[in-house]
């Protein structure tokens, strides 16, 4: 009756173990020589100005979202490009449609003025 649960329990354990091991190993193995510069907040190599807990502009979020979308597109396009000469026609068409859909999204965002940074 409970046989399948053993599998799940093992999976759960393994799942918690893996990140745990890396974190603990990191904590154990890393040399600890702190100084104020090392402990300051890292922000793209530029020093922070003012309070860090501030409300961000919504546009920033959408901007990031569109960036991520095209990131993902690239992820799909690489294998697609590599296997291009082995693909059947409809697979190519599917790829094209995928890009067109994303392009439509971009066009929409563009027209709506999302890409303007005000």
């Amino acid at each position, binding site marked *: *009756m409970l046989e*399948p649960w053993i599998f799940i329990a093992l999976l759960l354990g393994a799942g918690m173990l893996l990140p745990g091991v890396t974190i603990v190993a990191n904590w154990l193995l890393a040399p600890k020589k702190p100084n104020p510069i090392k402990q300051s907040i890292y922000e793209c190599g530029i020093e922070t100005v003012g309070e860090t807990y501030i409300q961000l502009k919504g546009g920033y979020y959408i901007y990031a979202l569109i960036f991520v979308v095209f990131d993902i597109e690239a992820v799909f396009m690489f294998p697609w490009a590599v296997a291009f000469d082995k693909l059947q026609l*409809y697979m190519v068409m599917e790829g094209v449609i995928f890009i067109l*859909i994303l392009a*439509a999204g971009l*066009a*929409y965002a563009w*027209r*709506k003025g999302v890409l303007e940074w005000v």
Partner: protein
Amino acid sequence: MDWQDFLSVLPFIIVAGWATILLLVDLWIPANRKGITAGLAVLGLIAAIAAVISRFGIEREAFDGMIIVDGFSSFLQLLFLGVGVIAIAQAYDYLRRRDIERGEYYILLLYSLSGMLLMASAGDLIVVFLAVELLSIPLYVLAAFAIPKADSEESALKYFLLGAFASGFLVYGIALVFGSTGTTALSGMVAAIESAETTPILLLVGSGMILVGLGFKVAAVPFHMWTPDVYQGAPTSVTSFMAVGAKAGGFAALLRIFISALPGAAVMWMPLTMWIAALTMAWGNIAAISQTNIKRMLAYSSIAHAGYIFMALPAAATPEVAPEAVRAALFYLVTYAITNLGAWGVVLAMEKAEGSGLEIEDYSGLGKKRPALALAMALFMLSLTGIPPTVGFMGKFYLFQVVIDANLIWLALVGVVTSLISAYYYLRVIVVMYMRDGEPEVRSEALLNSTIFITAFGTFFFGILPGFLLKMINQVSLLDLFR
């Protein structure tokens, strides 16, 4: 894979593709002429309706069983598309009135519809999940359409958070089913139950979670609590669409999964669904009594009706009754769709620009001021109660009969008693309309009026002559997954 496969999902492709194209077209339509977008959206829906009708009577599987085309899916798709047309017609003037007219409304509606279409013909749990998300996410956005109104935002956020929570259950359930059977295909579930001596417990747990996820979509007790808040806060035109479309979509998946993929485990899920049905009917109807806001009242009413449709599931556990149960559920869905769209249409007509006029008391004197509208509302209320000569009576009659055929007398009794309770709050609306004096402020917009007229006519017509609908439904059957 061949072109036939694409033809099988043609309605979906038409609606989703048309939505994407409209998204671009709409960018160049001036803000004060968004009626063009609405008209184009309706054109797309008509094309999809033609596509569905053209393949009526065909039964096949496509994309290796991911998509199922059968009478069940075609019928539901027709229902969804019809609901879509009416929803667009209802929204047009309402959006203008509330000054939230944007072309995206119709586009999001199309996307949501495409999810429903996919749901109707899903033959694989992955497709079910995809469809649920495609159905829901545009609805979350639509619920927030009256931004920056606080209730609309609150409604959308609640719906989104709880929806995501429920989706978690759903996807986790799918994962467990996959873990147990090694496939996500519905036919795989059938095979797994057939081959094993006892039903694998992982499969059961997985399907239980799927039940939770879909139970949330159809607002069954105890997964219903979001409903009144969300229905009340969302713009009324969205509520109308959500109450009918999303619920029908959820039931499409529930019926498909439990009746056609899990009949082997019926002994297990029968008592559970029975209790859910009974609880939902009781809770929805009892809680509706103390509502003073018409939107909340109709929200509880929609919960109660989910309970009635849910009765088809335990009834279908008896194999001989199963085909009839599916048909009764479909008939009830049509009943519910026609009547509810009409009732929400009246609510739309009564709502004022700033969003007030939604208390039941505001309906005082409607019978004198707008006799036709009041008559239509009275008809809808009678239909929701299930009093002849309305289609609601036929729906309840058919459903109760199936439940009794399956020997679930006490469940049918619960249904009858809760229907009696429901008369209390439905008839109160009629009493307020006709017997109280008042000066309601009512809009008269051609499109909205015509939707109310059409639904009222349907409510009455199918109430007297249900034969046409029954004939159509009698040809519906679920594709046998195990042939």
